[in-house]
């Protein structure tokens, strides 16, 4: 007797790691197949939004930046050498777009007021005033780091990426990323402790404790 399949029988599994799906997706993206483009957006938009937000903080132009990441991804899909590394490849593109946004912002620093897209959005309405102040202050401090240092620092400590992942996203060696992180962390700790809104976060026994 043939098995009757019902949609309700489908289990809610956790997302599976990339496998043959990723190979098929990469192949179909190279061919410009519409279903693959839709699938890429469905799967990866949240990840791209998160990477950009980790690096840049809340941005009014996040949609535009996310769009830019996917525009470049579709244009450069031929460069995806290992389909199973699709997410890492997309992360690297997001890092590139974020770096451009950081440098574009620094070129406008002569303006007295920041352009609207760079004014950090408030976090969600249920966040406490302390948290909101901490997030705002955090990005004020990391905003003072050099772009590559800021990117490595936020991907490692806020996104929680492994060192090898951070190196891959930044397109540098593991040794380089370790050096970059070491100096970024030291600079962040020094600036952060001096920031009024962050002083209470640098307590003994936690990361970036006072020496």
């Amino acid at each position, binding site marked *: 007797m043939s098995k009757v399949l019902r949609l309700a029988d489908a289990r809610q599994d956790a997302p599976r790691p990339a496998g043959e799906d990723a190979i098929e997706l990469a192949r179909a993206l190279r061919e410009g197949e519409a279903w693959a483009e839709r699938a890429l957006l469905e799967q990866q938009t949240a990840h791209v939004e998160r990477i950009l937000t980790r690096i840049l903080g809340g941005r009014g132009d996040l949609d535009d930046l996310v769009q830019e990441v996917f525009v470049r991804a579709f244009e450069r899909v031929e460069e995806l050498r290992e389909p199973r590394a699709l997410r890492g490849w997309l992360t690297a593109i997001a890092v590139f777009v974020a770096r451009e946004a950081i440098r574009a912002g620094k070129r406008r620093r002569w303006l007295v007021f920041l352009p609207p897209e760079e004014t950090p959005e408030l976090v*969600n309405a249920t966040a406490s005033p302390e948290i909101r102040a901490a997030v705002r202050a955090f990005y004020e401090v990391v905003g003072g780091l050099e772009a590559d240092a800021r990117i490595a620092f936020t991907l490692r400590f806020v996104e929680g990426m492994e060192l090898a992942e951070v190196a891959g996203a930044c397109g540098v060696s593991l040794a380089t990323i370790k050096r970059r992180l070491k100096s970024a962390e030291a600079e962040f700790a020094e600036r952060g402790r001096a920031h009024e809104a962050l002083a209470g976060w640098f307590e003994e026994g936690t990361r970036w404790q006072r020496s």
Partner: protein
Amino acid sequence: MATQLDPGPLARAVADAEDAALRERPRRPVAERLTRIHAAREQRRGRDTSLRGPIAAGLALGSVVAAALVWPRGEPLEAGTPPLAFAVGEAAAPGRVGEWVAAATMAAPIAFSDGTRILVDPGARARVVAVNALGAQVVVERGAVRADVVPRAGNDWSVIGGPFEIHVTGTRFDARWDPEREELSVTMHHGRVVVRAPCLAAPRVLGDDEAATLSCAPPTTAASDEAHPAPTVASEPGATAAPVAAAAPPSTASAAASSTAMAARPSWREIAGAGQYKEALAAAEAEGFGRLCEELSAAELMELGATARLGGRTARAAEAYAAVRRRFPGGDAAATAAFHLGQLTFDGAHAYAEGHRWFLTYLSERPGGALAAEALGRAMEAEQRLGDLAAARATATRYLARYPTGAHAALASSLLSP
């Protein structure tokens, strides 16, 4: 070895706050975002390329510039512009996304708020499946439509017939889709369109006064298919697939080739890698398609299936995907093969019930897989086409719960609206 990381309370607080804010943040539907992405790409190509003169007569390809050659008549759009509205029929009833427009004895217009007009011929059936500020997607199930699209910078319109997508930026043309013959006919009156389909090695560009008839259907008198008929694809997912015929002998032409000559020729994979899918499939058939189905790895069989699919040979594609499912059950490749079998039967043969079963098969094997959203949306579409509106509405509810801004969200919403 992974390094244990304790990010500390500050970094954790930042991450948690951002995650909460991102979860609450509204997101544009996938279809709209995709339209914007393509519009941005077109605009860049328009800036990067230079005009090379008027379009030559005939079906020349390749050197035609990517940008529209019609001076925009419409006003440029401003950020935040709402989606276009549209009205249907001579009575100008408000249009709804996903709703079919069928013209009985008189042509039925679909009139958009920017002045664009799609005229559905008598006997034809079409519907608007997505709409935003830059344009819309119109699917022609059968028959002919006449499109008169107002040119505007950033425009993004598509008319879809079967596997073909006609991309329009500002044009007047007729399009006819014959589902029985699986043929798309396009007659240009003014402007330029780009036609894409999985079976086309490269997009086809049509300009002023040009016409073309395109089909992805396999030829009806192919010698190799007569010599090596494709086995029946299993119509009951989960059951053992129909046994594949014994390894088919190579065709007469290739049998005459010496082994030295065969070794010197590029393999079917190399030819496919160059994007020459028809030629690649011919090379695969010369090696013995049935033998390949029994000997290739799962990944290679998927590649063979894709080659056949992109080469317009749906029967061979189905044969390859069926072999994957029979030889490598339970794996990622088998699940993905089910998805593609769904596409082949739904899009190619319009066998909606069979397509529906394959999409459900994928979802039962990979509920969280990369293609789950697309499979669920297609299953919903199949239920609608089969007239099972109760099932379609139930699936629509599940779809919107999981993918509120997914590519099929508009259809799901239309199914659930009173």
